[in-house]
């Protein structure tokens, strides 16, 4: 009975939400924006160092967002490995000995690596970029992991942590360097913008892949735990 009631209530709430949202969208769709950001963007695209406006926004105009976004990712990674088993990442249950998968892996992994590289490179002038590349890279890692390929660098050790933080650190270093050189935080010198962006994208790709992979791999099986403070 309560269940039905709960469903009814939630349905009503969701419906109200939906109608409010639709009404809003409808209303907003009928107005014009006071600020034309795309035009502004197009006007400044040349100074950004990349041709693809999305990448320009991501890594130049709103690079702060991206920096923080990577930060979020790193946090997730940290939090993930913080609950991971300390000694080994080997989880026998996760290992499959599927022949087909193994064969597929041998083909797919190099392909995905290539794809990742392309995506990264393409990012500067068409859709693509560090995140997409990183995701693809991570996917190949997952495949390898499922195939039972040991990946020692994923043990929670310095290597893993270095890997996690690499992209972020480089990004940050660039940001700080720009500040140190007298300009503002995160302001790239125009002549170096493209180089820097590419460099950042590259390390980011690695880091993103690393984080995603680590989160996938860090199977929390350790029994080490901490009781609540003064817990009884």
């Amino acid at each position: 009975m309560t269940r039905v009631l709960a469903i009814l209530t939630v349905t009503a709430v969701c419906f109200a939400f939906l109608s409010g949202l639709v009404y809003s969208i409808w209303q907003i769709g009928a107005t014009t924006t006071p600020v034309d950001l795309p035009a502004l963007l197009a006007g400044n695209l040349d100074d950004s160092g990349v041709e693809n406006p999305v990448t320009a926004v991501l890594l130049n105009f709103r690079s702060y967002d991206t920096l923080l976004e990577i930060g979020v990712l790193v946090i997730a990674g940290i939090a993930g490995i913080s609950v991971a088993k300390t000694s080994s990442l080997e989880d026998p249950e996760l290992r499959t000995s599927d022949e087909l998968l193994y064969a597929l892996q041998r083909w797919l992994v190099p392909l995905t690596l290539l794809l990742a590289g392309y995506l990264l490179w393409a990012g500067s002038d068409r859709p693509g970029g560090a995140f997409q590349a990183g995701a693809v890279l991570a996917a190949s890692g997952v495949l390898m992991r499922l195939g039972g390929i040991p990946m020692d660098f994923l043990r929670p050790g310095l290597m893993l942590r270095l890997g996690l933080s690499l992209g972020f650190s480089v990004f940050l270093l660039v940001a700080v360097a720009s500040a140190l050189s007298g300009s503002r935080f995160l302001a790239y010198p125009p002549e170096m913008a493209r180089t820097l962006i590419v460099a950042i994208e590259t390390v980011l790709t690695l880091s993103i892949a690393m984080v995603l992979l680590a989160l996938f791999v860090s199977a929390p099986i350790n029994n080490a735990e901490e009781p609540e403070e003064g817990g009884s």
Partner: protein
Amino acid sequence: MTPFLLYALAGAALCSIGLFGFILISHLLRKLLAFNLMGSGVFLVMVGLAQHRSGPDPVPQALVLTGIVVAIAATALAVVLIRRYYHLSGKTSLEDPAQNPPPAPGPRQAREAPHE
């Protein structure tokens, strides 16, 4: 009425469905999926609504990209936590622990009082 507005409206619908699931489902992984559904809805609204008038707009696209990363990070973290929670308590939902205490696999005794 451009297709973009349709996207936005579809996003709204996704949001509502996601919300419904998010509230009602107690299984944590499914709840998380509902959340992701909702997230997608939001991203659709964001892009659709912005592009409805001025055509392709890279800014919301970039925002959505960022948003996706954030959502993925959150999802991944949630999954990790949920897995560990499951591992420790054997449960997949946040039911009231008062009613059925967790069959904890032998939680260690409370930290010894420092004086002992």
